[in-house]
């Protein structure tokens, strides 16, 4: 039971970056390999505001997430915009390079030592047999709230509908007067916020160190693929599933190979259901 619960926590943490990957893939049509490093940078930003300037973690996280949102827009303008027409492979390679840069900015500033946020220690709560600490409760609450907000945004607000329209068919969206440059900016902003919050949650769950974000990269991609790249609901379900299965796998095999689970998951999905659980079947033109 405890393992199952830990799995849910891991999965919940991954929902945010998985959603970010899937949104970006939907609109820009390339998998962004820098998401891990973006989470790392945001987490360190929150750490700087929280542990060094003494702000409460909540304030620090909000500031860091919004800052990451704007940073993502800026990053897009500098790196990805000039490459937009060059195809997915070029964009992937650029995002890999970007990931190296961001992760090492964090390493340059704070070194390789693990750090943690300033949080009051509290005794873990107990529900039946499950031990649950304060950070985990915050994680669940924050991630659930973020998912609900995202769902509202995507289905209720004009900008969310426009994003889905661009993701579905960019040219058709253009015909209907949706300005894609603006949608792309919004997508990056939302991505940045999701990654910022996700980074803080990862930092709270484990510790802050430069590879903290990229350690999740494969799992996050697996979650997004499992849910069907481009499908927000799928990313949510995929992340939970991957998280739970990864944690449960530690019962039967060495915990060091947890990363094998998402990898095997990717292989299985690609063989049996390439479009993912909730994705549209991909039609080749």
């Amino acid at each position: 039971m405890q393992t199952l619960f830990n799995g849910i926590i891991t999965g919940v943490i991954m929902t945010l970056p998985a959603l970010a990957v899937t949104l970006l893939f939907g609109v820009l049509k390339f998998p962004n390999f820098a998401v891990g490093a973006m989470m790392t940078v945001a987490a360190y930003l929150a750490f700087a505001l929280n542990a060094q300037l003494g702000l409460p973690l909540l304030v620090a996280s909000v500031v860091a997430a919004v800052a990451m949102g704007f940073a993502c827009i800026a990053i897009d303008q500098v790196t990805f915009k000039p490459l937009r027409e060059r195809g997915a492979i070029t964009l992937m390679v650029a995002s890999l390079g970007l990931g190296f840069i961001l992760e090492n900015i964090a390493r340059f500033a704070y070194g390789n030592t693990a750090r943690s946020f300033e949080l009051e220690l509290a005794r873990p709560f107990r529900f039946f047999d499950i031990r649950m600490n304060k950070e985990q409760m915050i994680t669940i609450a924050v991630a659930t709230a973020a998912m609900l907000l995202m769902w509202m945004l995507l289905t209720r607000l004009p900008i969310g509908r426009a994003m889905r329209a661009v993701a579905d068919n960019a040219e058709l969206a253009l015909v209907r007067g949706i300005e894609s440059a603006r949608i792309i900016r919004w997508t990056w902003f939302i991505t940045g916020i999701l990654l910022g919050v996700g980074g803080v949650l990862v930092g709270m769950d484990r510790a802050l160190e430069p590879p903290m974000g990229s350690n999740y990269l494969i799992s996050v991609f697996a979650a997004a693929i499992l849910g069907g790249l481009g499908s927000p609901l799928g990313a949510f379900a995929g992340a939970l599933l991957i998280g739970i299965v990864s944690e449960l796998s530690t019962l039967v095999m060495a915990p060091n190979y947890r990363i094998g689970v998402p990898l095997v998951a990717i292989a299985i999905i690609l063989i049996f259901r390439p479009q993912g659980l909730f994705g549209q079947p991909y039609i080749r033109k």
Partner: protein
Amino acid sequence: MISFLVLLSIVVCFSAILALALNFQWGLGGMVNFGLTGFYALGAYSAALLMLKAGANTFVATLGAIAVVAVVCGVVALVTLRVAEEDYFAIVTLGVGEMLRLVVLNEDWLTKGALGLTGIPRPLGDVVPPEQYQYFLLGLALALLLGVLAFLTVIQRSPFGRVVRAVREDDVVAATLGKNVLWARVRIFAIGGGIIGLAGSLHSFYYQYIDPTQFTNIVIAYTFMAVIAGGRGAHRGAILGAAAVMVLLEGSRFLKDAIPALDSDQLAAIRIILIGAGLIALLIWRPQGFLREYRLKVSP
């Protein structure tokens, strides 16, 4: 100083061989390999283990390393590409690379984990006198580099080379013309993998000691940078790119003397930041690189 230059040249040779492998897989074949570091480590460890555990001589160990990496790469390509698109392939290679690094780090009984493997024999180590050994190794590395270059040039100009490029440009057209795209891609990836295995075994001969910290993602970064700088698809460009990148990379070690305030972690971080930035800058401003891909000319 001479000794430093010789050692630098040897390192340039490894990275040039690695760059040639990536240039074949990605530059000519259009197959992104983000698991390069893992495959490189696999090559180095296969060679070392074949010698230390199985008692093979250096020649057999090198062949073994080439075969192991080629087979693993081929299987990865076969399983993934049977069903998926390029985007997925990149993710899978990244994952497989990570997995290989984890195996190296955690299977203590085989790889001694973080301690690393020591006492790796060298080719003709007891024949060539130690003072001259570095020159011998440089000659060997150069010969192998030229060999790989010649091999890839022959492939590139063969009918199979045309299939490789056709698959990169448009796999649907290639398939329509009756080419087996999947099989071509498996072969492309396996050939590149074999070359990575060769580079890996040279790595273990050179250092005589391998541990997981030698195989970090900076390998991916500088190899991609070398291929992009040299011009995707141009073999000689890849070698030139690798030389330029390695000279810059090794030269940046002297930064430590110039700016004493930085510790070694920070210095390593700066080097990777510079490589990443250089990679993106090249993609934006000079995506064609410095040399052109070989084209068959019909008339002089």
